[in-house]
């Protein structure tokens, strides 16, 4: 196994246990570097394990069926691993204030399902950085946080 294969295996486990149907908070201590940066375009950036766990706990408190999965093979070179994914959830839970576009009151019942591309940096078996671009237009239109102003 090359370092790149190891890195892909780590990212695969991270996607399953952090972003998959069942969140296992212990994956953060195991695979996140202590000062890991988590930065997705829809959300405020998070730094460090406690902050990252808080992000996911709040996300799933609002969207209890939250789940994302890969849509293509991972791409790895050097320290970088690129993942393409799709997923979402239904807002049946708590109010959600972590979307940069605006807050959601509790249990709107709205569903979001959107894709994205993420670049992770893995060093010595730990994820140092996870920077992702969400298809925010899709997600925010579905959540009623964005509106189209002009007819196509």
């Amino acid at each position, binding site marked *: 196994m090359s370092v790149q294969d190891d890195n892909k295996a780590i990212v695969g486990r991270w996607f399953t246990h952090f972003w998959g149907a069942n969140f296992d908070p212990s994956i953060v201590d195991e695979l996140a570097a202590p000062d890991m940066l988590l930065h997705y375009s829809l959300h405020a950036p998070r730094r460090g394990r406690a902050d990252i766990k808080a992000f996911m706990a709040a996300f799933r408190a609002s969207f209890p069926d939250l789940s994302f999965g890969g849509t293509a093979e991972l*791409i*790895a070179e*050097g320290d970088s691993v690129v993942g393409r994914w799709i997923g979402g959830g239904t807002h049946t839970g708590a109010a959600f204030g972590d979307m940069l576009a605006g807050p959601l009151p509790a249990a709107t019942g709205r569903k979001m399902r959107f894709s994205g591309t993420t*670049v992770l940096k893995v060093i010595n078996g730990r994820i140092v950085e996870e920077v992702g*671009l969400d298809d925010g237009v899709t997600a925010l239109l579905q959540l009623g946080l964005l509106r189209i102003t002009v007819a196509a």
Partner: protein
Amino acid sequence: MTAQDMQRRNLLRWAGTGAVATAAGVVGLTGQAQAAPRASTDPRQTAREQANKAIVGRWFDGFWGPTYDPAIVEALAAPDMLLQYSLHVPRRGRTDIRAFMKDFRASFPNLAFAGTAPLIAQGDLVVGRWLGGGTHTGAAFSDFLLGSLPAATGRKMHFSGTTVLRLAGGRIVEEIGLDDGVTALTQLGLVAPIRA
């Protein structure tokens, strides 16, 4: 700066081959120096992967850079290439792809995109991260999936994205990109936030 210097600088910017790109540094559209790309240290990187990165570097420069060269489409696009960005209608084949870029630049004459990080390559795939945009001083534009712009709105868009390209036999077969559409479409006035 001559057009040739510009061309050369863009090529270096996109080349993704560490040593050269590091020496040249990277200058974004804001004119501020950005972190220079790091040399690839993957010893498994094959000659084909390096060649693919060089091809994508030329493509990003000649197709997406400040000066569009339509000949780049014949040179580097496979005859049935798919071009698909999240903001736009998908395009297939050289004629369609040239029409896309011609119209895009007829509407946004100063259109320019540039890389923000080294290219990442494995197998047939190359991943690029980029930033750019333009000012809508030209023709009406109806290629955005979510809405049309009348001529010369004067609006500026400046947004980032991530693109995955697939190559075969030294040609680009597929270019699939995710735009930060929230940023671009908000700037263009095609979407607006709804505040509770």
